[in-house]
């Protein structure tokens, strides 16, 4: 793409977005304060029927988190927290959570900041070394995983996290903060615990991450995509945590040309792309599970040419160069192997 084209496209988008800024972003503090709900709002019934556009309803519901580990504790406010945790506060200030919570707290002083996530701080302030008196999100915090995740889900329930309960990550005892760290801006997006989504997933799935270093791979090491493009780590309707209903629908998100439906379909292709391809990386061409022609010969033993055993003699430097083993092998002729829309393509020749 030429740079002028890029500039033209960028301008179009930015200008388009910019026209909306005055309408949605400019709001005085007084207006904000008037429109914010008066105090903690946890009921479904709150503000029913009232449009909340423009009043930051996402943070207006913030309340002091419930900490079963400190049942008698009371809120102490952000200033008290900062008295000891100044450096943490400095890092936190540049995060998205801080922006929203501070704005909401300024409009309504009853809206907590630190204690939204960490629970009431009085017991912790009295005995800072005692574990569990404040909701912590670290290995040695003394806060049960369930309390940690419940606290996050108090604001983040539903949507992509609707299937968290019962998901494989939940069942294996992961906490939100195994992957996210909202205390500083560690990543460009997503408040991840590591510098990227991919680095975060690789904490546990190092073996999968290394598959992307192989000869053919999805463009993940190059930063062009993330694990999150295909998987929803918070839970989904599929066992491998796919974001869509099936393997193929996931692949079609970027490979829409493979969707068809074709005039002539190839059964294993329609069933699952993973019948022939491995999703993360392969030392074969085009993410194939095993070399051609053997990949095809797992299923095809038809008469004549499909079922011959090839040896190195069939290669380009062999005694009998044979197109069935050379180069693209089977798919040199059966090129439209994902399905053909040609009336003369039942064997994917055209």
């Amino acid at each position, binding site marked *: 793409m030429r740079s002028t084209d890029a500039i033209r496209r960028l301008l179009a988008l930015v200008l388009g977005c910019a026209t909306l800024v005055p309408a949605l972003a400019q709001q005085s503090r007084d207006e904000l304060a008037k429109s914010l709900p008066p105090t903690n709002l946890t009921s479904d019934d709150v503000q029913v029927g009232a449009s909340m556009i423009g009043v930051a*309803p996402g943070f207006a519901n913030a309340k002091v988190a419930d900490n079963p580990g400190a049942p008698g504790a009371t809120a102490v406010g952000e200033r008290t927290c900062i008295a000891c945790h100044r450096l943490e506060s400095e890092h936190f200030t540049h995060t998205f959570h801080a922006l929203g919570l501070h704005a909401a707290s300024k409009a309504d002083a009853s809206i907590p900041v630190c204690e939204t996530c960490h629970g009431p701080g009085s017991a912790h302030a009295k005995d800072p070394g005692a574990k569990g008196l404040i909701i912590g999100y670290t290995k040695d915090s003394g806060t049960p995983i369930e309390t940690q995740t419940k606290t996050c889900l108090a604001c983040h329930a539903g949507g992509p996290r609707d299937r968290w309960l019962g998901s494989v990550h939940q069942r294996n005892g992961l906490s939100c903060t195994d992957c996210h760290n909202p205390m500083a801006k560690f990543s460009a997006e997503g408040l991840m615990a590591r510098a990227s989504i991919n680095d975060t997933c690789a904490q546990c799935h190092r073996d999968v991450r290394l598959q992307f270093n192989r000869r053919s791979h999805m463009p993940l090491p190059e930063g062009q995509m993330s694990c999150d493009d295909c998987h929803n780590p918070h839970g989904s309707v599929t066992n491998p945590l796919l974001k869509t209903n099936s393997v193929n629908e996931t692949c079609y998100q970027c490979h829409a040309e493979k969707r068809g439906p074709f005039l002539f379909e190839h059964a294993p292709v329609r069933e699952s792309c993973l019948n022939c391809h491995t999703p993360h990386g392969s030392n074969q061409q085009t993410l194939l599970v095993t070399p051609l022609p053997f990949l095809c*010969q797992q299923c095809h033993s038809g008469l004549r040419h499909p079922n011959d055993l090839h040896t190195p003699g069939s290669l380009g430097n062999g005694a009998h160069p044979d197109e069935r083993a050379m180069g693209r092998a089977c798919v040199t*002729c059966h090129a439209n192997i994902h399905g053909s829309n040609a009336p003369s393509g039942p064997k994917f020749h055209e």
Partner: protein
Amino acid sequence: MRTPRLLRPLPLAAAIAAVAANARADSGVGVDTWRANKLDPTAGATVEGCDARGTSWLEAGGHRTPTGNLYACPPPSPATADHGAWTTSGILSVGAVATGGDDGNALWNRYVDWDGGIVLALLAFEAERAADGSYASVRASRISDDDEYYQAVFGRAGSYKVQAFLRDMPNLVTNTAKPIWNGVGTNHLTLPAGYAAGASTPDAIAGLSAATPERTLGVTREKQGLGFSVYLTPQWTAYANATDEQRHGARPFGGPFFFNFPFPDNGGVLETVKPIDDSTVNLSGGFRYAGTTWRMEFGYSGSFYRDRYTRYTYEMPFALAPLVPGAVSAPLTTGQFATEPDNDWHNLKAAFTRKLPLNGELSITASGGRMSQDDTLIPPVACAGVFGIGLDGNLQTGPQNPYLYDCANWNTPDALSRRSADMRIDTSLLDARMVLQPGADLTLRGGLRHEREDYRNVYLAYNPLTGQYGYVSENGSQGSVVPGESGIWDPTDPSAITRIRSLPLDMQTTEANIGADWKVGARDTLGATLAFSRYEPNHRERGTVDDGSIKLSWTNRALDWLTLRANYTYLHQDGDRYDYDPYDFTYSISLPGFVAPPNGVPAHTVDALRKYDVASRSEHKLDLMATFMPRDDMTVSASLRGDFNDYDADLGRKGYDTLGATVQWEWQPAPGSNASVYYAYDRSKLRMANINEINDGGSNPSIGGNTYVDIGRWWADDTQRNHNAGVVLAHAFGRVRLDASWNYLHARGTTDYRFASPLALAWADTVIGDGAGGGAFPAMTYRVNSFSVGLHIPLHERVALRVFDLYERGRISDWHYLGFATTHAIDHRVYTDGGPQGYDANLVGVLLDVRL
């Protein structure tokens, strides 16, 4: 007629109007969750390094995640500037890069376009208004014309977010292409002047190929998108996304004009070049509700693919010859492919979750979709004149030449049973899940899922001009070499076996599972899940495929210095009777008037073969993950994963086993200093078997009959081994930061084989002697050493200099391309791609980081 390309480029008006449509995807919907490039896959997160003060003044060292991994050191606070109510910060990183060595290599340039010269490594600018939480940001990076991204976001925390982006991503497929045709990248490939289509000699084409300079082939994706999400109330949110992506370029493809291997100086096997010029618009949008009792989501997703071309054609250089003495083959000059059809996809989804007593939840998701296409169909053949064989030695159609056909009856849309494809698949999904937590220590789970795909049309290969069934095989070439194998059936040739119908692949899957998780004390959790799945495909070898599995899991945190997770799954797959040939109805065999050949209908395949997706199998799967914390500043992570599959198949896939282990040591002795070392090994072995026939017209599908005998059996094992290792170092020498890394991959794949006798072989004379034997292909290897080193040198409070170097050495051997270094053209075979090549390449760069 094709629908015009959609939204290319996205016009400004549409961008504004469509702010209710987006490109900002989240972890629940869509792709585009990350924009970065190889220059910095973290999109700038690590540019400024680490805050030397660490995480906290209260305690030394870092914290650990609940699992036990060390949290990273937080970045230093950005330099901010106040502009009235707004506070801004940012960084601009610009400089130059230069490449050397084999910098045109396709593997070195995979998904990156190191063009050299000036680069915008990063522009990140943020503005915030603390008073109401408004914010705006821009992030951009540009390595070259084909490798860049630009992103703009604005919104208000907890209220709304609008996001727009542009992204160009290269995909260099090969740098060893020698296409002999003119018109690469277009939908019509022609031979250069002086090379006659259908009449060139192999020597002439080999010379043409040799004289063709190597070039690169690749595909660039250009994508732009808009995204919008908003809180409507504290409970209701809405989101909308729209993206438009164009792909353009070219890549090696195929081109069949019948076999060359059994017929020297005959046939044609052509690796042509396919043009890529298409666009895809993806849309998604929906509403979500999250209350204390109910959660809901109503969503729509749509995708619209448009290809510039309906077909592409290429010239065939070689002449064909009939196998029958005295006969003559029709001269064929042009081959064709249908491109992927324009297609539309719509999907609606509704999900409901309700809190239940016993601290439980019930979730029900219903989804319905439709994928359809009605692309104009291309004619059955692109020839002019005649195709087939003139048995009497001339090319005049008539009773004397029953296997010679007029192209005019087949090279027109009038030769089709219908003009457009009109294909459609309807999909539906119903998923229900219930979780109950009757006590703090016990979780009970259950789920049901039902999924269907219903085909809504079939295609009949019938020519109304001639009254014949079937199609024109391999651009007319097969019938021009072998009499009677044109692919056409009619009552005058009633024993011809050819495809006459499309294959609808309707299917449904029903799944059920129950499970429980039990916390045994505070530090152990045990889990068990029983699952059953019934897959019912139509027109497959089995009508029912049943999976039953049990999964056991254990999480242990008994030791302060260890978190252990273990999962084991046993699965058994079985099904109803295996029908080795369920496809008769798609062949002329099913036509009234079909007459079986004198020796019977040739066996479709051997009846002992089991296609692995529906074969019976048992699987053992083991997954161990351990996180050790030997010291406050160290973490050792280890994993062991195994997956062992045994297939109940005499022929076909017999087994597929994988076993891998990783270990990684991480050390963070101080803020800004860290080191890690990792090693990983994995091995996979795929075992398969097949059988060659003794009689290519045999009708008996069983081993021991007139078609297959035991001495035709063969076996192959493909074993893949991967060694990965790496070291990462980062250390601050005063204000100067050093980053260095080494990553290594050594992949080695071996394919060895055994055979009962030379009868099994494609070329029996390639082995010496008779009887059982075996051998192996040359190892397929891929070895990469990658070193990088960088220095970050502060020059001023707001300015720093970055110098870096990346050196990579890659070695690859792929036996598919052995001999291609000498020639890409062997007899009637012409290959465009010369295959992957090793490389030694270097990237050096200098960047100036300026805090804005």
